[in-house]
């Protein structure tokens, strides 16, 4: 059986946390350039220029692109033929985040719900583990900001709501969020499953790079229809008015209970940070 040490996992997570906060993905930077070409508002064009400049500065100066370096969300695909040695996986992930946020001078943004006392090391981490065939460990490190997370919503719709109802609730979520989640956003949508699975699908949909189309043609059409509707809202970059409110809509869908139509909308700010590592 293939083995992997927790030391390697710690090191990989640590560097991913830092690099993720300093280096905006090329897919997102390209989307800013495309948005600038489509944008009509001069203020909005100016903002997109600032975002492009910010991404270059962050990369060059190793200052985080956004001061909200996020609550660390980790998606793991653990190959069932892989043995982890030298400790337990969850502890290794937490240690990687702890070290990355310390060494990278990233903001510690985790606190007690009521006293608001900071935990001091950006843990605990939100971890989602899936066991898959094979002997690899795939890790996505996703620092998620609070501003866009706060504007996310979950709906348990009646089945009669259908696509029309789903569409209406997604658009309304984006419109009522307005400038708060730092548009231009990426709208992650989870349809089906159950209460918690819909939320997980919505978040997971955000792992897909912006330059990769949805492999499902039905979902691809739905994403296109939603993006067009959202970008008619006029909210624009930073909510100051413009054509590009969202850069993309990403959907994941699965079957649900005969009584339900769960819908989750997870909004991602333009600082869409997701680093994928395969060990």
């Amino acid at each position, binding site marked *: 059986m293939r083995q992997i040490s927790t030391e390697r996992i710690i090191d990989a997570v640590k560097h991913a946390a830092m690099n993720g906060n300093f280096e905006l993905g090329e897919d997102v930077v390209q989307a800013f350039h495309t948005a600038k070409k489509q944008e009509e508002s001069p203020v909005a064009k100016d903002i997109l220029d600032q*975002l492009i400049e910010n991404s270059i500065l962050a990369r060059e100066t190793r200052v985080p692109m956004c001061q909200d370096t996020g609550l660390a969300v980790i998606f793991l695909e653990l190959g069932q033929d892989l043995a982890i040695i030298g400790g337990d996986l969850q502890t290794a992930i937490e240690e990687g985040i702890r070290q990355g946020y310390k060494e990278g001078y990233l903001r510690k943004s985790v606190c007690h719900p009521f006293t608001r006392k900071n935990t001091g090391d950006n843990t605990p981490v939100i971890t989602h583990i899936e066991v898959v065939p094979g002997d690899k460990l795939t890790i996505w490190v996703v620092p998620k*900001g609070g501003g866009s997370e706060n504007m996310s919503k979950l709906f348990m719709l009646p089945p009669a709501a259908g696509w029309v109802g789903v569409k209406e609730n997604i658009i309304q979520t984006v419109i009522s969020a307005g400038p*708060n989640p730092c548009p231009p956003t990426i709208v992650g949508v989870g349809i089906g499953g159950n209460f918690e699975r819909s939320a997980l699908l919505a978040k997971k949909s955000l792992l897909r790079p912006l330059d990769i189309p949805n492999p499902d043609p039905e979902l691809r059409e739905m994403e296109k229809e939603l993006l067009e509707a959202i970008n008619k809202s006029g909210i624009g970059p930073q909510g100051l008015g413009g054509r590009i409110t969202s850069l993309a809509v990403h959907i994941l869908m699965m079957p649900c209970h005969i009584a339900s139509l769960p819908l989750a909308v997870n909004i991602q700010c333009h600082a869409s940070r997701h680093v994928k590592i395969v060990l």
Partner: protein
Amino acid sequence: MGNHPIHLETPLSDQDIEILKAGDRVTISGILYTARDAAHKRLIELLEAGKDLPIPVQGQVIYYVGPSPASPGRVIGAAGPTTSYRMDPYAIKLMQLGLKGMIGKGKRAPEVKEAMVKYKAVYMAAVGGAGALMAQAIKEARIVAYEDLGPEAIRQLRVENLPAIVVNDTLGNDLYIEGQQKYMIE
């Protein structure tokens, strides 16, 4: 819009801000104070207890930001604005004491906008998520209160040409509403 930005030097007077209109681009130089919701809560608790505040308020500008830590050799880490509605429950009290400016991102409550007209104050948006870029305008930073709050401590910043856009002016205009209406497609 698109014209040369209006330059502001803090502290601000009523005259300084009455000329500002929603949609104006500004650059700000001088002293700013940082505060997020945790610090605001403590400030208001002091006022309610009849005690002095650790920072001046009259004529001042508060920047809603919780910067990331400064790495060695730097003044500050990333320092873009946080979402402002969380400060809405506290903002009116500070405007009554003469606060002239707030910098953040996102919509303000109707009563906060009304208070800006009544007490003459403006709300300006900085580009959210442009933390590395905003940090370039910050020349000095030191903690002046509530160090235990970490990123939420109150810092005194000296800034040079910090870029922002006026969202809510003293006439009750709101760029978030007007900007969206202008580009909305029915």
